[in-house]
Structures are given as C-alpha cells and as structure tokens.
C-alpha cells in the first residue's frame, strides 16, 4: 500500500454486509438465526446502525393479512404492477408479496410494536395507488408503528443482530470491492475513526447501501445517501439497472425537503394552489389527492409552472399548500403527531391554523444494482457474480419498475433481506476460502489524488451546481436538450472536482475527505441517471420526457448501464419478467401492458 496511508490488519469473515439499514440488518439476522456460528461483519457510514436512513421511514408497510375479508395478495400484486408502469418483474412481485405476511409476524414476534385498534387487530392506512378489486376502491393495506415504522424495523433488526453476535464497524466506508477472478471476496474499507484503510476479506459480500438522494437539491433522503453502492458496482465494471427511474415525493416541506408523508393526505389533507383551489381533481379525477406520487408531483410542478404556485421568501422556492386545518385534533395529534409536528418544528407553522408549504422533493431510487430474485448481483450479461449480493434501495430486483408505490420499499427490505440471507447460507456451504492478492490499488490512487490536488475551488459549490443541474434537467420533467446540457455540465464538474485541494490534512475523521469521495460517487451516479434518461425517448412511471410524453412498447425493457470510464456509458437491456401473465389463469390478463390511469 501507498506510504502516505496508514494500513490496518486484514479482517476475515464469512459474510460482509455493507450498510446497516433495514435491508442489511434483516439479512444479517436471517443468517445468524439459521446458522449462529457464521461470522458476520457489518459496515455503516453513520455513527451507529440505528442512525441509518431506514429509521426515518414514517408511513407504513404494505401487506395483506391472509384473513382479510376484502383485500387479497393478487390486488396488491396488480397495484404494484400497474404502479410500476408495467416495468416491475412479475416473478419478484409474486415472491415478495406472497411472503409479506410472514415477515410482519417475524417482526412482531421479535419486538416490533405495530399499532393495533381497540379490538386488537392491526391498524391499517391507505396510500396512493393501493386499491381493492383491480382499481375499484381504496385499499387499507399499510400496517405501521404510529409514524415511526422504519424506526420500529431498525430497533428490532438491530437488536436481534446484536443479540446474535454481529460485529459492527461504524463510521466506516467501503471504497472498493475486491475480486479473485470473477468472485467477490470482500472490500477495502476506510475506518474514519482510526483514519486507516483495511481490507475485509469475506466469503460473501452484500451491498445494502441505500439510496442516492443527494444527487438532487431538495431531497427527503439523509445526508449519507450518496449512491456509494452504485458507484462501487460501476467501478467494478458491473451494471446499474434503470438509473433513470427516480421518484419525487410530491410533498416535501419547503426548505429542508423533509417528507410530509402521504399519511397526511390519506387522513384527509388536501392540496391547494395559490388561489386556494384544490387542483388534484383536474389531474386524477378518481384518486385525486391520493393518486400515485409521480402524478401528484407533476400536477404540483404544472400548477407552479402555470403561475399558480406561491413563492417562499426565505428559501426562494415555489410551492403549493397542503391544507390540514379541517382535520380533527385527534387525527393531527395522535395519528399524525410526529408529521404535523414537523411543520411546527422546521418552518414555524401551526398546521391546525395555517396552510403548510410543500413542493416535490427527491425521494426514492427505483433503479439499482440488478439482481435475481435471491438478491444475487448480475453482470452485464446477466450472469450472477459469485459471492456478491445486493438488497434494499441500492438494488433492483425489480419490485418497483419505474415507479414505487408508497409502503412498498420497507416491505422489499425485509423480504429481499430474508431471501438473500437464505441464499447466502446455501452459498457459504461451498464457498471457497476468502483470499485476495488485490491490495486496493484503486482506492489508494483515488485517495492520494484527493490529497494531492492543488487547485482552488469549493467542494460545496461544485456539489451545489450538480444538484441544481440535476434537479432542473433530470428531475420531474426532462427534455433532450436539458439532458444533453446536464451530461456536458457533469463532465465539467468532474474536472473541477479533480483539481480541488482539500484543507483538512489529518486522516482521522476527515469529513472533508469523505465529502470529496462522496462527490465523485454523486457525479458518477448523476452521469448514469442523465445518460439513461437521454437514451429512453419515452415517458414511463417517474421518468417523464416532455418531448416524448407517451409510454412506448419498443422500450418495454430494463436499461442496463455500465461505465468503464467516466462519461463513457454502454447500454444493455434486461427483459421485463411477465410470468404472471404468461402463467395464464384467472386474473392473468390484468398483468399485460395495461394503461396507468387513476
């Protein structure tokens, strides 16, 4: 290793999990419950696993109780398929939804505190796009723990993993995957607290690094969501699937972008424009305020573009209102306590008396590292990469296609986490010993480059320029010309970043160095998002091209992007799995290329 860096001793383990959100920890617990002697190490960028982004998921988790008299798994499958704009994989939809109820029991039996009604039945709320009987009426399908469902999942899975002897490395970042031949054998890790680089050699490695919301200017995502997992995969020559599928949540609180959950509208909150008129009935006559996210986001952006938005003087951001004044004290204080409190806390507004300012905010990445139904990572030719798995928001199996339904993400974490765990256990039976000659040359040259740069520029300004550009050109509305500008702009920003000198010298907890590395990841991810959006000359789900507003059959496939060197992207295709349609039978016809109207 390079002399300017401190190098710590290698670690060995059976399973290395990069990322301790809901997906990573659900997987860890599956492995440790079934095979307690497995040595599992888990890395997180944040100061403790509980601080992972999953802890902030508020609204709920979609699932059908098998004893439910009206709701059925098949309706949930249909909604997910339709919501995805016919681009989710049907084998995945079926597998996840059919095992969802079992996962609720798993969580509750290990200490999660789901909300229940007086009769002791699980409470449920409805979210955009969840319906009964193939679109007939609203389905009450999301179970929840008050407004802290994600926290409940994190507390439970973290507790279980701790109980079963997992080994955590906190404030540690995976910077490079290690391979022997085509088999993944671990990762290079920068331990921030010690300021040293180590190698962790493992028989199996799981990427569970979460989202990439920091690509955009206003986002509901946490500060650490910089798309590291995607950048790790791309750097290893592996593809990212459907990067252009980025979801914007319609109701971010103006300013910090904090998410004002669908729960507000599900409990009766109404969107109003500058003239205080409700407008959703013009865009989605049936579902109105509860239409899926992309529809509501575009409706709000359209209101704003057509001069019916309101300007917030502090942040200089246009927005619309959400009206909660007519909701009962009980609903606002008890059912939505934490969320309605947000307005008080973060913008000094009392939702009981005043209108609350909201605008679309980046929220979720449907795209990710392509995997099989067991979370096994696929390369560009769709062969699985031995020893490497990906789950959670950074992965695409694909359960969400081009648009995720509310309450379907944390369902994906706990189901795919379990499936990947089962597959890891099988893999470990025959996995070869973990050795590697690779020393992490890539990481070392990258980090030496960061420390040696001499130019005068500001990381903050470069990042801000990237976020503004991505929001404007690759956000809710996209066009050919705008995307071309974005691609050119990103190249310039990458050059500027490469020359920027850092001021912090020591390596221990050097946050500037980490921000510099994250900026590279963000620029990489932005580039694949913009190029894939440019390549897909149609509109589908959350990907909306103003110049090609219709969905086209010729694009009925998943985009695969690889990037051998910065800006040089190659495209491939993965077919959309239509196995429910192909299997025929009762409701099969509902799973064709249907129209996405609400």
């Amino acid at each position, binding site marked *: 290793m390079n002399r300017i860096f401190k190098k710590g001793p290698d670690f060995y383990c059976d399973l290395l999990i990069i990322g301790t959100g809901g997906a990573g920890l659900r997987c860890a617990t599956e492995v440790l419950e079934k095979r307690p002697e497995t040595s599992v190490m888990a890395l997180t960028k944040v100061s403790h696993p509980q601080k992972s982004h999953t802890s902030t998921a508020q609204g709920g988790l979609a699932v059908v109780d098998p004893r439910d008299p009206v709701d059925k798994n098949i309706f949930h499958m249909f909604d997910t398929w339709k919501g995805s704009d016919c681009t989710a994989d049907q084998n995945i939809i079926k597998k996840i939804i059919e095992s969802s109820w079992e996962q609720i029991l798993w969580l509750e039996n290990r200490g999660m505190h789901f909300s229940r009604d007086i009769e002791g039945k699980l409470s449920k709320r409805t979210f955009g796009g969840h319906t009964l009987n193939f679109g007939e009426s609203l389905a009450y399908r999301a179970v929840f723990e008050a407004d802290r469902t994600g926290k409940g999942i994190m507390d439970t899975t973290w507790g279980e993993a701790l109980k079963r002897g997992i080994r955590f490395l906190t404030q540690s970042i995976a910077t490079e995957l290690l391979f022997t031949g085509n088999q993944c054998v671990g990762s290079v890790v920068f331990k921030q607290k010690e300021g040293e680089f180590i190698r962790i050699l493992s028989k199996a490695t799981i990427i569970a690094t979460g989202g990439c919301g920091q690509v955009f200017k206003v986002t509901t995502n946490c500060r650490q969501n910089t798309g590291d997992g995607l950048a790790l995969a791309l750097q290893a020559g592996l593809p990212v699937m459907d990067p252009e599928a980025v979801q914007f949540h319609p109701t971010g609180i103006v300013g910090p972008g904090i998410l004002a959950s669908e729960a507000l509208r599900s409990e009766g909150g109404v969107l109003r424009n500058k003239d205080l008129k409700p407008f959703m009935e013009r865009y989605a006559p049936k579902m109105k305020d509860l239409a899926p996210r992309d529809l509501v986001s575009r409706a709000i952006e359209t209101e704003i573009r057509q001069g019916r938005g309101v300007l917030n003087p502090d942040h200089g951001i246009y927005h619309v209102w959400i009206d909660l004044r007519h909701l009962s004290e009980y609903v606002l204080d008890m059912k939505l306590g934490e969320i309605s409190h947000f307005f008080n806390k973060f913008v000094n507004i009392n939702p009981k008396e005043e209108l609350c300012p909201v605008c679309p905010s980046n929220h979720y990445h449907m795209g990710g590292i392509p995997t099989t139904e067991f979370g096994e990572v696929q390369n560009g030719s769709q062969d699985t990469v031995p020893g490497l798995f990906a789950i959670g928001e950074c992965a695409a199996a694909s359960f969400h296609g081009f648009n995720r339904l509310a309450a379907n993400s944390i369902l994906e974490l706990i189901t795919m986490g379990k499936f990947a765990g089962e597959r890891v256990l099988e893999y470990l039976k025959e996995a070869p010993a973990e050795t590697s000659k690779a020393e992490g040359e890539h990481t070392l040259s990258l980090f030496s480059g960061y420390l040696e740069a001499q130019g005068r520029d500001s990381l903050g300004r470069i990042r801000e320029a990237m976020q503004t550009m991505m929001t404007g050109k690759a956000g809710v509305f996209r066009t050919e010309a705008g995307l071309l500008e974005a691609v050119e702009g990103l190249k310039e920003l990458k050059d500027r970043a490469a020359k920027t000198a850092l001021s912090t*010298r020591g390596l221990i907890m050097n946050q500037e160095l980490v921000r510099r590395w994250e900026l590279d990841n963000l620029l990489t991810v932005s580039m694949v998002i913009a190029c894939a959006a440019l390549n897909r000359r149609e509109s589908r789900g959350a990907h909306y091209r103003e110049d090609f507003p219709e969905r086209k059959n010729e694009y009925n496939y998943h985009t695969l992007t690889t990037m051998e060197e910065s800006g040089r992207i190659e495209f491939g295709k993965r077919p959309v799995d239509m196995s429910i349609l192909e299997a025929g039978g009762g409701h099969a016809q509902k799973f064709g290329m249907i129209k996405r109207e609400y």
Partner: protein
Amino acid sequence: MAKTYSITLKIHRYNPEEDRSWIQDYHMEAGRILRFVDLFHKINDEQDSTLAWNSSCEHGQCGTCSVIVNGKPLLACELLVENAVHRFRTTTFIIEPLDVAPVIRDLMVDMEKAYEKVNQVKPYIIEPAPLPVERDVYPITPNELELYVNATRCINCFCCASACISSHKSFLGPNAMLAAIVRVMDPREQEKEERFKVLYSDQGVYRCHSTQACTFVCPKEIDVAHFIALAKEGAIKL
C-alpha cells in the same frame, strides 16, 4: 427582503493529530428558518471546509446531530435560527460536542462508545414469551402499550444522558434505563429477572436524583424521569 439575523457561532474544535483544542468564531447572516445543521453546511461550503460535525436524517428522527448549544444538549437539525435567538435571548451561540463519549474531531464524538451502555441493558427480547394458543403473534392491546409506548420512541440521541447530573461513570444513563424499562413492560419478554438485576444494580435507577433534567431536554418529549421514577417504585412490574 426576507428577515435575517447576524449571528456568531463559537465552536469548540479539536484536532486529533495535534491533540489541540480551541474555540473558533464564525460570523454569518442567517434566514429565520435556517436550522443549525444548515449553518454548519454553510460554514463547510463558504468559510471553513475543515469543520467536522455529524448528522444523518436531518429531520429529528435519528439522533445523530446532538450538540450542546449555550449549555443545552439538543438536536442541531431541529433548532431554527429564529427559535434559538428567542430561546437563548442572544445571537451568539457556544457550540460544544456532546459530553457522553470521547471527542474524535471537532463536534464528532465516538457514538459507539456511548452506545455501549445501551448495549449493556440488552435492547432486544432476551426470551420471547410463548404465543397464546392458536395465535401466530403475541398481540399487545392498545391499553397495555399505552403504558410504555412513549418509552419506545427514544432515538438514542443521548441528550438526556448529557444533561443528567448523575455521574456518567457510575450510571448507565437515562436512555439505557428506558431501553431496559421497555422490555420489562413488554409482555412478550419473559426474561424479567435479568433486567431487574441491571435496573436495580449499582449502575441502575437508584443513581438517579430525580432532577428531571432528562425530561426537560428530550427532543422527543418523552417523560424520561417519569419512567425512571416508576422503576424506582417498582411500578413497572406488570
């Protein structure tokens, strides 16, 4: 023109390589509803990229951004400039790292060390109670849950532990006590004895002097002292 405040942040800094501590002043114009984390971002972007500080969710849900502002432990992502000026009646703010674990750099402390105390009380179900006949889960009624639901809302921000006057050395701390109390009150947990041993050990609830500082600072508005008082009275044995 939107209203702004001219503020000064006096930030406690520490450089681990040189083992050097100092206080650094930052001056800025800040809009009314900017939060303290926004100010830290501004410092990094516009004035001083070397300042190290911590946050994650930046919306009061994860407990990563705790710092001490003018003597009060709080979440930097929840403190609006306007509210801070009113609350502390000043535009000068002294900002220190939380005093519950060793400082690594500037405002960043070793949270893993702080969490060791929570780990000691085993924040999980040790021995699950058997399921009622013909049930696939052990349902908790809303009435049962009501008794301790507030204790489950803790995000381990350690603000209470920092405010607590009982010694950090001899007391596991208010949030660790809460974690233990949750599982004592949770009917799904069978192993109560082991929990009582920790709660009533010489690092347990009797170290508490009932000052209620924990309740006062808790950003989640949990009445921490109430739960600890219940434990002292033995009133958590359902």
